[in-house]
């Protein structure tokens, strides 16, 4: 068993490493983009403008309630029927971003709602505009609260990126599929790929825990 894993590693380490790099790139880009998009959607959802609220809610409900795989297929295969050609990397990153943003928006909305109304009212009363009050008073407090749920979403994002394997995304899962069919050592190949995902998700979890503690103190 262990010997098999070592054999696979020594023969295919190049594929694992290049898959890891692709998975990391996709994860980091989607993480940043979905955090930005999710924040905007969350603000839409709690804004005083009815139109924005409808757009925000519609986005969250529509995206949250459809499978990620279908969204990735839409960006990859669906758009190409409209003559918009996206590579698997771009389509996958877009799909992951759009999907994760819906969950992040929900987490942030919950965080903002947990800040007492008086904070916003006091900020507005002292002459800040709505956006300034959001930016300098409410959001900084809300982010502290939403760090743990955001951390969960980021970890999910990394794991969800394995779906790119089905659109030839050249990520960890894609290479693992190919290695397992070449070696017929299915179990060992995927155990090894699991360890690789851990090398991304465990440090991420440690980072989130550290951030949480640090912000609590501040």
């Amino acid at each position, binding site marked *: *068993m262990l010997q098999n894993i070592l054999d696979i590693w020594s023969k295919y380490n190049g594929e694992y490493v290049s898959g890891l790099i692709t998975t990391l790139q996709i994860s980091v880009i989607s993480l940043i983009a979905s955090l930005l998009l999710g924040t905007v959607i969350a603000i839409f959802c709690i804004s005083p403008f009815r139109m924005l609220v409808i757009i925000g809610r519609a986005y969250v409900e529509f995206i949250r309630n459809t499978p990620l795989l279908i969204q990735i297929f839409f960006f*990859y*295969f669906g758009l190409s*029927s409209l003559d918009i050609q996206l590579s698997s990397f771009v389509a996958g990153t877009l799909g992951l971003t759009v999907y994760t943003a819906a969950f992040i928006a929900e987490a942030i909305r919950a965080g903002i709602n947990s800040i007492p109304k008086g904070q916003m009212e006091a900020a507005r009363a002292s002459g800040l505009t709505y956006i300034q009050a959001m930016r300098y008073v409410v959001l900084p407090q809300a982010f502290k609260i939403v760090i743990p749920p955001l951390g969960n979403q980021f970890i999910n994002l990394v794991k969800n990126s394995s779906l790119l394997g*089905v659109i*030839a995304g050249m990520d960890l899962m894609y290479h693992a599929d190919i290695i397992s069919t070449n070696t*017929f050592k299915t179990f060992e190949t995927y155990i090894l790929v*699991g*360890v690789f995902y851990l090398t991304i998700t465990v440090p991420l979890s440690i980072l989130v825990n550290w951030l949480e*503690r640090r912000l609590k103190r501040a």
Partner: protein
Amino acid sequence: MKKKVSVLSLVFMLVMSVMLVACGGKEADKPADANAPASGGTEKSSVAAAKERGKLIVGVKYDTNLFGKKDPADGQVKGFDIDIAKAIAKKIMGDDTKIELKEVTSKTRIPMLKNGDIDAIIATMTITEERKQEVDFSDVYFEAGQSLLVPKDSSITGIQDLNGKTVIAVKGSTSAKQIREKAPEAKVAEYENYAEAFTALKSKKGDTLTTDNSILLGMQKEDSSFKLVGGLFTDEPYGIAIRKGDAEMLKAVNETLSELKSSGEYDKIYENWFGEKPQKK
């Protein structure tokens, strides 16, 4: 103090997860060992097991036109492989309806056979030395060769034109491996199954799709805006795979194949699907 505790708990979690992986390994090894005597023939063979459960379970493709394809109109899986599977069921079970078809892909078929989910694989499977380490093969039941499918207006005429082009293939297929050797300058993108690979070609995610000519012909029958080019650049003898050491099943399968061939039934099935008689060697 509080910080220390949470760092400790993290370390503990890591150790636990490593241990879980290690335990999982041991457990997974066990059934493999337990299976070894069974497939060695000292215990029940899969022929006896199929008779006991009252049906033969065969892994076939559901997405490969002409060989094994689910007809959306009536939900039936139809094709050349299916007809061969039925003939084997008739031989072993005495009735060609005592059969259960299970969908396999190039990626899942060997693990499923080894797990005991299926008794045999009849799924456009090329006989290779590497696969022979994992499974036993029957005599050749179909002679195919690898070719290229391209859009009608493509400039590709053969494997010499593939430099820098993206070639679509299916995960776990021999064609994916062989195209890397024959056209090392080409980029290979592998998809889950033939339906997805063909969708990728239609969506212009690659310049050409490569696999056995027999499968490509089935695709071309569905969409005539594509053509086959490059001739046959490999030999792909298809075999029926069964669990290693399952001599009784191997004998039954090979007998069925030779009976089909001598009775002329094989030619009939062949002509029914491919519109021509098989070429005699």
